[in-house]
Each structure stands twice: as C-alpha cells, then as structure tokens.
C-alpha cells in the first residue's frame, strides 16, 4: 500500500488517468528483432551456422554418434556428482527423471583450473553440463534433441556454442564451447577473436575453455578434424555490439500446408470444466519471481514427456505456462487450436517447443526444415519437445482422430530483418605501437542501426552493429581485438557522450573522440603484456562531466 497522502493520491489519479492502450508483447519483440542477438557470447544462434565441407555421409563414414545414440559415452560420473545431480533433479517435476545417469565425458585442467564436462541422455534428449570446479560455477544442462544428432551431417554437434562465466564484478572469468563429437573426430579447433585454440576431445564430446578471456572475446568458428584426414568448419557468423547483422535463414518450412478439418471452436474441456488434472504449482521448484508474480496457484501442470524436463500448465482457459527447471514461461491462451511457446537461446543450440492443443487433436507431429518428422509428446492436451535451432523453421501439425490435419502452426527462430553491411565508408585509420593498422569503416544510420567493419593489416576483420536508441549504456566496450602483436579496443557510445578516455591502472589516459558513436583505440605498448590487466573506458559529456565508466580486461596471448 502506498503511503502517499489521500488528497495527493486523488490528485495524481486525476492528473494521469488509466491509460487505454493495450499491451502488445509482439510489438516489444519486434522492437528487439534487429538487435536481438546482443552479446553473441550469450546468444550465439545455430540458425546462422554455416557448415563448410563435404557434409554428405561424413558421420556415416566416421561411425556417427553411436555411443550417444545407442550406448554410453564417457564413464559414469563420480558418486558425489551423481548424487548432486539427483538431488537437483529430485527437487521438482520440471527436471529430468531423478534416476538419470550422469556420465563424465571430459575432465581437464586449464591453467590450474579444473573443468568437467558431464553428459546424459533422457528419452530423446541428449544433454551436456559443464562444471567449473575451481570457479565454483556450473551451467544448466544444455540439450539437443536426438533427432538433430542422428541426422547431423557434421561430425560435431555444437550444443553450447559460446558461453562464459563471470566473476562478482561481472568480468569474464572463463569462456567455453562444448558439444557432441562423432566417433572419428580426432581434433576440434576453435577459432576465437584472440586466435586459434584446440579443444579437448573425450567421451564423444569436445570442450574448449579459456580462462580470463579478453572483453568481448567470441568463438568465430569450429573446425572438426577426422581420423581419415577430412575436416569440416562450422562458422558461427559472430558479430559484435548490439545486433546480429544477418538475415533470416531463408529456409522454407516443410510438411502439410493446408488444414483439412479445422476445429470450429477450439477448447480444452478439462480446463474449462475446472478439473484438477496433473499436479499443482507446489510440486514445482520455481524461482521466487515465477512463484510470487507469475505462475498462478490455481494452475494445473502436466509433464507430457516423462523423460523430459519440461512441464506445461493451464490455469483455466486463460493462461498457459511452460516450466523448465526453476524458470517459467507463459502467456494468454488464444482461441487457436494450437497455442505454442517457443524458447531458446543463451548459447544453447536448441529450443523448447511447448504448449496446448485443443480437444479434437489427438496427435502432434513436427516437420523440420530438413524434411524430418517426429512425434511430439502430448498428454491431457499439453505438449512439449526440444528442437535444434538448425531444424527451424518448423511446422507443428495437429491431427484429429481420423488422421486429418486439424491445425498447423509454423514456427521460426528468425534473426530479424537484415542489416546491411554494404556502403560502409572509411572514417579513420588507427595504428598500433607495433605497426598494425586498423581501417575503420562505418555505415549510415538505417532502421536506427549503425554497422561497422574494421579491417586490420594482419587480416582480422570484425564487424558489428549498434543501435541508435535512447536506452542502454552510454559507453560500451564491444571487444578487445588482438592483431599481430597489437591490441585494439573497439566500442561505441550514445548521447550525450562527446569524448571517451581510456584510463589505465598506472594513471595513463588515452583520449578519444568517437566518430559516428564508434571509438577505436590501440592499446599502448606499455600494456601489451601477458598478465591480465583492467582498464576503463570513461565517457564524458560535452561539458566534460563523467557520464559512465566501463571496465574492460585484456592481455596479450603468449
């Protein structure tokens, strides 16, 4: 209850009446579209993965992913780890079955820090989970559907393309990439901003970890080498800044395109009648926000796939919920025959497709972009499954008891409208202390977006885009780019920032004037060391008032 005085309350109410506009979440999402893939470290997207090489028959020739699909990769996880996993899964229904067996795939030590990659299979889902023992962090399971692995034309299936841990000051403490490897994979190379690295191979998986990466370091591509001498490169299309300047995948959805027997008045009878099917919210281990503000106490939940980790719930005929782990998604039920919630991202290369099907739909099938089809677990009108992002766009098709197509929903995992990198103009050259030159090119503002490309005399050519909107940080360091023996800092600003200063730990200051909001600077020779260093990009207004200070970390790789 507000403690505002009653007369003041009345005055404020009169002054600002209840607005009449309606919420439009779709509009919010559209406003994110051009810049949805901010921080590719977090949100690298498989939808743009470009596989280079002779794909056909590669996995067959290598023996494929048999150990994952039919056997047991790696070795049993230590008892303590298995118990920890069971305890976590046993807390709630929105988790994998408690008796899921964890396998230890890779245990490696990187510069004194130990990392363990675990894997497990539950039903038709294959999952990996990284534990950073020295750092005390773990990832949530990152999963991919069995179908994506079974039909992969690449000898590796990227499960988590690029992710990282941060320390308490939000500075990068580790960056990693992991996935599933076919039997014949002998080596996986990781090309990142800071150079070429070798991943560790083991247990039919690969794992690359880098401790204390430079700010903005990203995985650019992964190359799998096989025992028979072939190799295949998966390019992640990594860019920097706010936006992902690539267009839609261009793939077309497959499967039925026409509804044969539409459902006249879609309804879910048991929910409409108020039947208490499934279980209540109390059996879910929801985070506090979801429990307090989101998932309603009267909702009823069902786990469509007993071997999955996703539960789907309904509160009457109005609200639909999808719960995975401790987090929940949800929305209002429409009068469509299929209500679908798709979630994914976070570096994990799969998405969850879940929702509710109206009475009359007895079977659900997903048709993916490669022409594969697979059944979707459906129970009490509720469904849930996982799909690899590379399988989008999808058609989710509902059939009635007579086998007729009763409903179709086409699902995309698009990147938003294309942002052009054409028409960039050179605005300046920056030369590092060791002679490497950066040619800075920038484009005009289009759709409130501006893109850049920086060509280095040593061959690197990172690209990026940033938004010209009034929100967000005033100063943002996008990346530290190594080039030859030099290091460059690339970042952008927003008004009212007029100048940027780089403050180094010994007090030295490098002054910069952004051009078109972009700033590029070479790190002075004195700081080109292999020891990790912290510096700050400080943004000043035209009146030379400090507006924001943004830290960045960097070091030269030995």
């Amino acid at each position, binding site marked *: 209850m507000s403690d505002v005085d009653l007369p003041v309350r009345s005055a404020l109410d009169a002054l600002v009446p209840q*607005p009449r506009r309606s919420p439009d979440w779709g509009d*919010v999402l559209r406003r994110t579209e051009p810049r949805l893939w901010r921080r590719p470290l977090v949100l690298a997207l498989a939808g743009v993965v470009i596989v280079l090489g002779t794909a056909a028959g590669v996995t067959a020739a290598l023996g494929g992913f048999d150990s994952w699909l039919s056997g047991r990769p790696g070795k049993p996880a230590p008892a303590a780890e298995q118990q920890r996993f069971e305890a976590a899964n046993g807390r709630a229904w929105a988790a994998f079955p408690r008796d899921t067996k964890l396998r230890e795939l890779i245990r490696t030590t990187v510069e004194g820090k130990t990392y363990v990659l675990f894997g497990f299979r539950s039903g038709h889902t294959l999952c990996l989970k990284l534990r950073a023992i020295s750092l005390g962090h773990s990832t949530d399971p990152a999963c991919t559907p069995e179908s994506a692995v079974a039909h992969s034309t690449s000898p590796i299936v990227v499960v988590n393309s690029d992710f990282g841990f941060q320390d308490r000051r939000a500075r990068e403490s580790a960056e990693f990439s992991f996935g599933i490897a076919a039997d014949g994979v002998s080596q996986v190379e990781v090309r990142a901003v800071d150079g070429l690295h070798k991943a560790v191979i083991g247990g039919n998986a690969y794992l690359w970890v880098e401790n204390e990466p430079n700010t903005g370091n990203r995985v650019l591509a992964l190359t799998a080498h096989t025992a028979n001498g072939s190799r295949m490169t998966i390019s992640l299309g990594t860019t920097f800044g706010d936006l992902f300047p690539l267009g839609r995948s261009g793939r077309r959805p497959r499967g039925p395109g026409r509804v044969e027997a539409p459902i006249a008045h879609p309804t879910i009878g048991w929910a409409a009648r108020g039947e208490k099917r499934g279980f209540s919210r109390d059996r879910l281990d929801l985070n506090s926000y979801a429990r307090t503000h989101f998932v309603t106490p009267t909702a009823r939940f069902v786990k469509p796939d007993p071997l999955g980790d996703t539960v789907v719930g309904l509160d009457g005929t109005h609200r639909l919920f999808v719960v995975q782990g401790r987090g929940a998604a949800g929305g209002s039920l429409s009068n469509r025959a299929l209500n679908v919630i798709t979630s994914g991202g976070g570096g994990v290369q799969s998405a969850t497709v879940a929702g509710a099907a109206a009475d009359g739909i007895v079977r659900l099938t997903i048709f993916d972009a490669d022409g594969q089809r697979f059944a979707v677990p459906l129970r009490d009108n509720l469904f849930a499954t996982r799909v690899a992002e590379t399988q989008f766009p999808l058609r989710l098709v509902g059939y009635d008891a007579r086998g007729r197509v009763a409903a179709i929903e086409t699902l995309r995992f698009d990147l938003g409208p294309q942002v052009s990198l054409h028409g960039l103009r050179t605005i300046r050259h920056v030369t590092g202390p060791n002679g490497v030159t950066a040619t800075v090119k920038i484009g005009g503002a289009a759709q409130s977006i501006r893109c850049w490309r920086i060509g280095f005399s040593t061959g690197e050519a990172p690209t990026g885009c940033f938004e010209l909107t009034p929100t967000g940080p005033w100063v943002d360091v996008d990346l530290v780019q190594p080039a030859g023996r030099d290091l460059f800092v690339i970042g952008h600003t927003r008004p009212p920032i007029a100048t940027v200063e780089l403050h180094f730990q010994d007090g030295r200051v490098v002054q910069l004037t952004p051009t078109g909001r972009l700033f590029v600077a070479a790190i002075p020779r004195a700081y080109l060391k292999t020891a990790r260093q912290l510096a700050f990009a400080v943004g000043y207004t035209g009146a030379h008032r400090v507006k924001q200070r943004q830290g960045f970390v960097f070091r030269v790789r030995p």
Partner: protein
Amino acid sequence: MAARRTELEALYRRRFHVFLRVATAIARDEQRAYDAVQDGFAAAIRDERRFREEGPLEAWVWRIVVNAALKTLRDEPPTDVTPSVNGAAPSVDPELRARIADLPERQRTVLFLRHFADLDYRSIGEALGISPGTVGATLSAAHASLRRTLEEVPE
C-alpha cells in the same frame, strides 16, 4: 536466458498498465510513454545479461523504462504540462497540476513510482539508482510541497 525473457514477458503482461501510467506521468504524453515502455522492455530483453539479480527484476526494468521516458522528455519537451491520455483532459485543480509539474524531476518520478507502481523504497531506489533513504527523503519533500498546495487551495 530463455527463462529471463519469460519473466520479462510475465512482468510486462501483468504490469503493462502500471508501466504505461508511470511513463505517461513522466513523459506527459501517452504515445511517447507507450514507446518508452515498449522500447524499455525491448531493451531489457536485449540487455538481459546485464541484470545481475542483485535486486528485483522489476526494479531493473523500471530503471530502463523510467530512463526511456525521461529521455523522451529531454528530447522533446512537452508544450503542455497536462498529460494527454487519448485526448482526455483530466479534471484536476490547475494549481495542483502546475505544482506537480513543477516538482523537481526526481521528486515527480519517485512520487509516481510510489503511487502508481506501488514500489517499495528499495525498488524505487534501484530503479532510480539512489538509496532507499534518499527515496524516503525525496518522497517526503514531494509530499510536503504538494500538501502545502492542497492546504492553500480553498475547498
């Protein structure tokens, strides 16, 4: 990250009108307020990794939306201090309206966040980047100022 987005969506659906009302109070124009809310949530989705869970998600989003609303005010100052809500002219004492309009920006914003959004002092503080104590003092000052006006207005 997917879970965070769903939390944002839930917050949006549950509190849209509150966000819009506060943003309208700040931006003094419903269309600009609507853009501030929509852009604010869009920015929250894009920048979700910046949310450190050191406070409520809602307070973090409020900070973004309030900044967006304030930005519209700075970019294009309103010609009329009366909020325009779909063309409806609210009926309120002109002197009180003027006094509210004349409140320092922080006082106005704290007042609206407390009244319309019903946020506690900590959440308001997190939304505005000030301490809960400062929230209390600011709110108190705003109340005092408005109370004086009310007392001066004959019944």
